[in-house]
């Protein structure tokens, strides 16, 4: 009867041995390769530190000017520029400037890395069903595994601070980029592709001349998703000592400081909205050019 009442388990001690073996294995791996891995990521760390210093040490009017310039370049909209200026001024006035710059640095770098990796991965996935079937479960794991679970090995290997934090953010934020690139390319009309083939376009020409431009709206949706997820993950990354807006949010949660939590949380929202609107406008403009081209 017992067999039916209780699910047969491996047994306490066997299970414990299994866990210990995995841990022991990882520990010796970390002892053997941890330092090497850390050195491998050194340039990234230096870049991150340099970038953050650049943002925090440059006089704030110049930073505001550059950000407005970038917003203008991306969106070509005065409303966006003014809105951004107001947001950043309020952030600075409420004494969140340095944390915001730290967050901005890590989110920008994380987004860039996610796009650099996610775009080719998405293209690869779109090329063959087998690749897609192989990569999708990996993306599922990356996106849904509770972040604490992979923060543990990351901290053992690389310690606390920016690099492990950046890795955590990238693991979480990369999947939508790959998924939506894949989806966008797959949704491109077969007849358009046949036409391109008929005109003698080779694979590269089809990819860059037809598929990617037509998939742009979906790809940009992926970029947006990645940015949003990177921003939300920055708060979790503060659990392993990443400086930025996440730290005060964490402090606010553990001490029940409502105002502190709300202000820093809203600063993250402001960053998210700015990032989102600018990248969307930028995407729309790129597609507007395409429509014009098609019209001629």
């Amino acid at each position: 009867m017992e067999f039916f009442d209780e699910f047969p388990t491996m047994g306490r001690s066997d299970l414990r041995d299994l866990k210990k073996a995995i841990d022991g294995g990882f520990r010796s791996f970390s002892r053997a390769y941890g330092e090497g891995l850390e050195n491998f990521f050194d340039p990234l760390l230096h870049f991150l530190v340099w970038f953050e210093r650049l943002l925090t040490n440059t006089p704030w009017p110049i930073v505001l000017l550059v950000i407005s310039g970038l917003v203008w370049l991306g969106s070509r909209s005065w409303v966006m520029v003014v809105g951004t200026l107001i947001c950043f001024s309020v952030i600075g006035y409420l004494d969140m400037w340095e944390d915001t710059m730290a967050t901005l640095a890590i989110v920008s770098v994380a987004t860039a890395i996610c796009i650099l990796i996610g775009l080719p991965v998405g293209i690869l996935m779109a090329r063959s069903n087998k690749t897609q079937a192989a990569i999708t479960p990996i993306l599922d794991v990356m996106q849904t595994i509770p972040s604490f679970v992979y923060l543990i090995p990351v901290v053992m290997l690389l310690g606390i601070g920016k690099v492990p934090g950046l890795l955590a953010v990238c693991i979480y934020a990369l999947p939508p980029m790959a998924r939506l690139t894949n989806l966008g390319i797959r949704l491109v009309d077969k007849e358009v592709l046949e036409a391109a083939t008929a005109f003698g376009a080779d694979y590269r020409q089809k990819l860059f001349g037809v598929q990617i431009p037509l998939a742009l709206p979906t790809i940009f949706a992926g970029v947006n998703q990645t940015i949003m997820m990177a921003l939300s993950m920055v708060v979790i990354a503060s659990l392993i000592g990443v400086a930025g807006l996440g730290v005060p949010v964490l402090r606010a949660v553990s001490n029940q400081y409502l105002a502190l939590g709300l202000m820093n949380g809203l600063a993250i929202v402001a960053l998210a909205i700015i990032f989102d609107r600018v990248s969307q406008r930028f995407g729309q403009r790129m597609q507007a050019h395409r429509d014009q081209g098609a019209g001629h």
Partner: protein
Amino acid sequence: MTNKRLLTLAAGAAALAFSASGAMAQDSCGSVSMAEFDWPSGELLANVDKIILEEGYGCDVQLVNGGTTTIFASMNEKGEPEVAGELWINAVRDLLEKGIDEGELKIVNDGPITGLGEGWWVTPKFAEEHPDLDTVEKLLEHPELFPYAEDESKGAFIGCPAGWGCQLINANMYRAFDMEEKGWELVDPGSAAGLDGSMAKAAERGEPWFGYYWAPTAMIGKYEMVLLPFEVDYAGDENWNGCIALAEQDCEDPQKTAWTKSEVRTVVTDEFAEKAGPAQDYLSKRIFPGEIMNKMLVYMQDEQASGEDAAYYFLENHEDIWTEWVSDEVVSKVKEEL
């Protein structure tokens, strides 16, 4: 065969009898919410209490997870949870005294664990290689020995995660010892996992590590970390409670001081004290010897035991200790459950 069957029958009967008596006793103790502090000794202690109170005294225990400040604030303001088994009172001393004066809270145990200590620790390899730097003050002159990965010109001092009482203390001590001018960076590890991870990583690889921790803990026991004594004496309660332990803006001029003596209490709400007489006797009698606690913590880490697993292990393997805390009747009730 028959023997075995008899045994099963007996056990079944005992379980029945027990659950009946448990249900009856529950009326006297009722449901109790207990803090399960989010560090291993806190988890173990809460689970040992839970098992003994449930099985031995018929309480119905819910564990509430949290850190010192969170739990204490909730206890003080809302009377929930009703029991904090391992409350490190240094961080909340003033509020606790106020709560006791007002009759809301009650200390039932002045030292549930012996042999405690907080302070600043270094890795054993470092202590061995630098026998001359054997006090905090001497070490503070050499930030270059602990290069900070994100700024190599500075020394990294790993502080305490946000939300723990010790975070404020470390930040004020950092100011009191002019550590910023001396070239130190106060690194926020972000969380308990971050703090442990950074220490474990350094100790496993033989790298230098200087930061805050407390004992008895598995981390200190396992890595044989070395506590650095201070050269200055303890500069008095006024400096500590009135400044060092407060938020930075409330502490204008922190004085150099040795670390205050760590004090842990078991605190209950007045309501619990009224309704749970015998259970409260247990709480006042249970004292974990520091050395046993250390062993238990290393066990928890080595075996990856949860607080609950470790509590059962403790009850099974350290009978000589816990049977001293409770009456024979309770001992037999709890033993039946094991």
